[in-house]
C-alpha cells in the first residue's frame, strides 16, 4: 500500500469510506489506483498538482464568491484522487434516475394541466398552489414533446452502510457540469498512466448530447433550430460554465440585451440585423426572464419572451415553473409521485424528511434541533441551513423562531454521515473528506445520462457542506467496467 495510504485513517466505524472497507482492506475497484499512488513521492504529487493548477488557471476556471469583495475569483478546489464507481453500482443509479426524472416530468405535466394528483389527494393541493415556484399563468401551456425538465442534476449521497440516496433534485438550472468535463481533462494531463489501467467510461460527448437534446425540443415548425445559451452575465458565479458550454456546442452565448422580441418571435441582435432564435438554454432564473411578466426591475431578461414561449415560437430549457417540483417540501413526496405515475417502487431512496407544515412533524423538529439538519425549502447552494450537531444553542433558537413563523418554508432531515473519500488536504497527507455525487440527466426524445457526474468534496475538515460557495471542491469521477 502506498506511503500516502499507509498513514491514512479511514475511521470506518463512524463513516462509510469509499476506498477502504470496514475490514481495513482496499475495495477491489481501487486496487490499481493504490498501486499506482504507491509509486509516487511527495514531489511527484506536487508536480502533478502544478500541472492541474496551470491547466485550470489557463482555462480561466474560476468561480466568484458572493459577499466578498467584487470580482474575487478563485480557482475551484480540485482533489487529485479520483472517485471510482463500479459499473454495477452505476447502472442502478442510472435506472433510478431515469425513473425519478420520468416521474417528476409526468408530475409537472400533470400539475400544469389536469392536476389529477391533487384531485386524488396524493399531495395536499395547498402545498403546490401555495409554492412560490408554481406559475399559475402556465397552466395549459404545452412545451414540445411534453418535456419540462430537459437538463437536471440530482444530488446523490451514501449513508454509513453505503446505500445510495437522493438528497435533492435540481430541476431549474443545475450547474457544475463544466467542472465534470474539465476535471477529466486535467486528470488526463496529470495521470496519463492511470487511465491505461482502468476501463473508464467516457464523458466527453456531453456537449454534443446537450446540443442534440436542445435541437430535439425546438418548435415543430422549424427544421434546423437555432439554439442559444442565455446567461445572466460575467458576474454570475457560473459564467465560466455558460460560456464553456456555448463554446463546446458551437452556439451563441447571449445576454438578455442580445435578444429582442417582435411579434412574439425572439431574435438575436447581430451586426447584420436580426436572426430568429428557436431554443434558449437559459441559465437565468424564472423571476428574471421577462420584466413584463416577472420582476419588472430585471435587467437580465427579455421583454416579451414569455409570450413568445406561450405561443410556441421559442422553447425554453428548462421550462418555466419547474421549481415547483424540486422544492424541498415536494421532495418528500417523490416516492409517492413515482408510485402514482409509474406504478413502480422507487429504485433510489429518499432521505427521511419531516415537514414543518405538518403539526406532528413540527413538534418533532423543534424537539430535535440539535440532531437534525434543517433546510429552507427554497434556498440552494448551502445557504439557509442549520446543521444541528454543529450548531450553537443560539443558532438553534433563531431557527426555531423562523420555523414557527413560516412552517411551509422548512423541512428537516436526520444528519446523515455522508460517505468519505481520501483526499489530499495539502499535497502531503490524505484525509477522509465527505462527498456527494451529482449526475447530469438530459431529457429530449430519450433520457441520456453521461456516466458519472460531478463528485463534490467538502475540503474543510469534518465539514458536511460540499457546495463550492461554502469551501467545497471536486474530484474526477470514474465509472469503470470491471
Amino acid at each position, binding site marked *: 500500500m502506498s506511503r500516502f495510504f499507509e498513514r491514512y485513517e479511514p475511521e470506518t466505524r463512524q463513516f462509510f469510506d469509499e476506498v477502504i472497507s470496514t475490514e481495513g482492506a482496499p475495495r477491489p475497484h481501487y486496487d490499481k489506483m493504490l498501486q499506482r499512488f504507491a509509486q509516487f513521492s511527495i514531489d511527484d504529487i506536487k508536480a502533478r498538482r502544478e500541472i492541474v493548477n496551470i491547466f485550470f*488557471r*489557463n*482555462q*480561466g476556471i474560476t468561480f466568484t464568491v*458572493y459577499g466578498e469583495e*467584487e470580482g474575487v475569483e478563485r480557482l475551484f478546489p480540485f482533489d487529485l484522487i479520483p472517485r471510482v464507481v463500479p459499473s454495477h453500482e452505476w447502472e442502478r443509479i442510472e435506472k433510478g434516475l431515469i425513473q425519478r426524472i420520468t416521474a417528476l416530468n409526468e408530475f409537472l405535466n400533470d400539475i400544469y394541466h389536469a392536476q389529477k394528483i391533487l384531485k386524488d389527494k396524493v399531495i395536499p393541493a395547498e402545498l403546490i398552489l401555495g409554492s412560490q415556484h408554481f406559475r399559475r399563468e402556465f397552466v395549459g401551456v404545452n412545451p414540445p414533446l411534453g418535456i419540462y425538465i430537459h437538463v437536471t*442534476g440530482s444530488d446523490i449521497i451514501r449513508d454509513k452502510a453505503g446505500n445510495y440516496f437522493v438528497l435533492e433534485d*435540481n430541476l*431549474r*438550472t*443545475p*450547474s457544475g457540469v463544466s467542472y465534470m468535463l474539465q476535471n477529466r481533462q486535467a486528470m488526463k494531463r496529470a495521470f496519463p498512466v492511470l487511465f491505461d489501467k482502468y476501463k473508464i467510461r467516457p464523458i466527453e460527448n456531453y456537449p454534443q448530447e446537450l446540443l442534440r437534446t436542445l435541437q430535439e425540443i425546438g418548435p415543430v415548425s422549424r427544421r434546423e433550430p437555432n439554439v442559444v445559451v442565455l446567461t*445572466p*452575465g*460575467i*458576474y*454570475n*458565479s*457560473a*459564467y*465560466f460554465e455558460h*460560456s*464553456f458550454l*456555448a*463554446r463546446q456546442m458551437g452556439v*451563441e*452565448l*447571449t*445576454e438578455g*440585451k*442580445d435578444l*429582442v422580441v*417582435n411579434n412574439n418571435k425572439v431574435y*438575436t*441582435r*447581430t*451586426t*447584420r440585423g*436580426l436572426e430568429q432564435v428557436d431554443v434558449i438554454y437559459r441559465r*437565468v*432564473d424564472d423571476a*428574471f426572464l421577462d420584466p413584463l411578466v416577472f420582476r419588472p426591475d*430585471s*435587467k*437580465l431578461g427579455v421583454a416579451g419572451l414569455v409570450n413568445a414561449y406561450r405561443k410556441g415560437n421559442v422553447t425554453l430549457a428548462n421550462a418555466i415553473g419547474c421549481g415547483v417540483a*424540486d422544492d424541498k417540501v415536494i421532495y418528500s413526496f417523490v416516492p409517492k409521485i413515482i408510485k402514482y405515475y409509474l406504478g413502480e417502487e422507487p429504485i433510489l431512496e429518499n432521505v427521511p424528511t419531516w415537514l414543518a407544515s405538518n403539526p406532528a412533524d413540527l413538534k418533532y423538529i423543534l424537539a430535535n434541533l440539535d440532531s437534525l439538519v434543517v433546510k429552507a425549502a427554497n*434556498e*440552494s*447552494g448551502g*445557504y439557509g441551513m442549520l446543521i444541528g450537531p454543529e450548531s450553537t444553542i443560539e443558532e438553534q433558537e433563531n431557527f426555531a423562531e423562523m420555523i414557527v413563523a413560516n412552517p411551509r418554508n422548512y423541512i428537516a432531515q436526520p444528519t446523515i454521515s455522508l460517505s468519505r473519500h481520501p483526499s489530499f488536504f495539502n499535497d502531503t497527507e490524505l484525509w477522509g473528506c465527505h462527498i456527494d455525487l451529482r449526475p447530469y440527466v438530459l431529457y429530449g426524445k430519450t433520457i441520456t445520462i453521461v456516466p458519472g457526474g460531478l463528485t463534490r468534496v467538502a475540503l474543510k475538515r469534518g465539514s458536511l457542506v460540499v457546495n463550492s460557495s461554502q469551501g467545497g471542491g471536486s474530484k474526477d469521477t470514474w465509472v469503470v467496467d470491471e
Partner: protein
Amino acid sequence: MLSRVAESLFWMSRYFERAENTARFLDVNFNLLLDLNKITHIENPNYWIALILVTSDKERFNSLYETYSAHTVTDYLVFNKNNPNSITSCISLARENARSIIESISSEMWEQVNNLYHYLQSVTPQFVHNDPYGFYKEIKNASHLFQGITDNTFSHNEGWDFIQIAKYLERTDNIARLIDVKYHMLLSEAQSQPEIVEGSEDIIQWMAVLKSCSALEAFRKVYLSKIDPDNILRFLILDRTFPRSINFSVCAAEDALWRISGSSRHRYVNNADRLIGKLEAELSYTAIEDIYAKGLHIYLEDLEQRLVKVGEQVHLTYFAYHTPEIEPLDIEEALPFTGVAGGRANWSQAQQHQQQQ
C-alpha cells in the same frame, strides 16, 4: 455576429492598444531623462506633466496627487485603479471584455490577456522603479504577442476586422496626442528658454517621439540622419508604409471597415465608412505645408475629433442595441458612446449574482 460580441472584441482590442501606448510614453520618457540628465533633473516636473497632458487627464491627476514626479506619474499611469486609462485598468478592462466573449475568441488569446493581467497583479511599484526598461518592454512584448496570437489563431473574418478597427483608431489617436503634446512642450520652452529650442535638446526630444513609436530606425531608412521636425512630422503623420504612422493606421482602419460592410472606393454603405474614407482621402493628398498652413495643433485637434466621430458611427452601425423598426428611438435611453465597455460593467452585477443550484 452578435453586436455585443463585436463590441467586446472592439473594446478588448482598444484597451490593449491603449495599455501598450501608455507603456511606450513612459518608457521613452525615462530614456529621455537619462539622456538629458546633464542639463536637467530626473524629477523635473516639466518632463512628467507632458505624460498627463497626453492622456487629457490633468484634472483627475490633480485631484489625486500634489506634484508631477517620476513616482506620482508612474503610479497614476501604471497602477492607479481610479484612472481608467492606467495600464492596470486597461488590461483589467481588456480582460473583462475578453472574459465576456471567452467562447468567441481563441483560448490562446484568452490565455495571453489573462497572463498579462496576472503579471500586472503581481508587479509592485518598487519593481517598476528598479527596472522601468524591463517592465515596459514586458508590456510592449505582451501586446505584440497578443496581436501575433490573434493573427494566427483567430479567423480573419468580421470579428478580426473589429479588432483591427479598434486597434488602429486607438493608435491614430495616440500618435496625434503624442505629437500634439510634444509641440506644446517645445512651444512653451521656446517662450521661457529661447536659447535651447534650436539646440541638441530639441533633437533629442524629437528622437524620443520617434522612439516611442518604435519609428526611429524606420525613419532613418527614409530620411537618413536628417532629424528635423518637418521630416519627423511628415513621417509620423503622412507615411503610408510605417505601421505606427497616422496615415497607415487610418488606411488599415478603413480597410477593415470596408471589408465588413462591402464598401469600396466611390461607394460607401454607411456613415462610418464615409467618414473614414474621407479622412483617408484627405490624408493621402495632404502635404506637410497644408498642415502648417492650418496650424499643427488645430490640425491634430480636428483629427482627434474626427476619429471620435468615426467611433460613434461604428457604434451606431454595428453595436447599438437598438432596432428602430421594433423599438422607437428614445434619445434619453440610448447608451452613451464613451467607454461603453468600461461603463456598463456595474449596472446589473447585483442581479447576475443569482444563487445557482
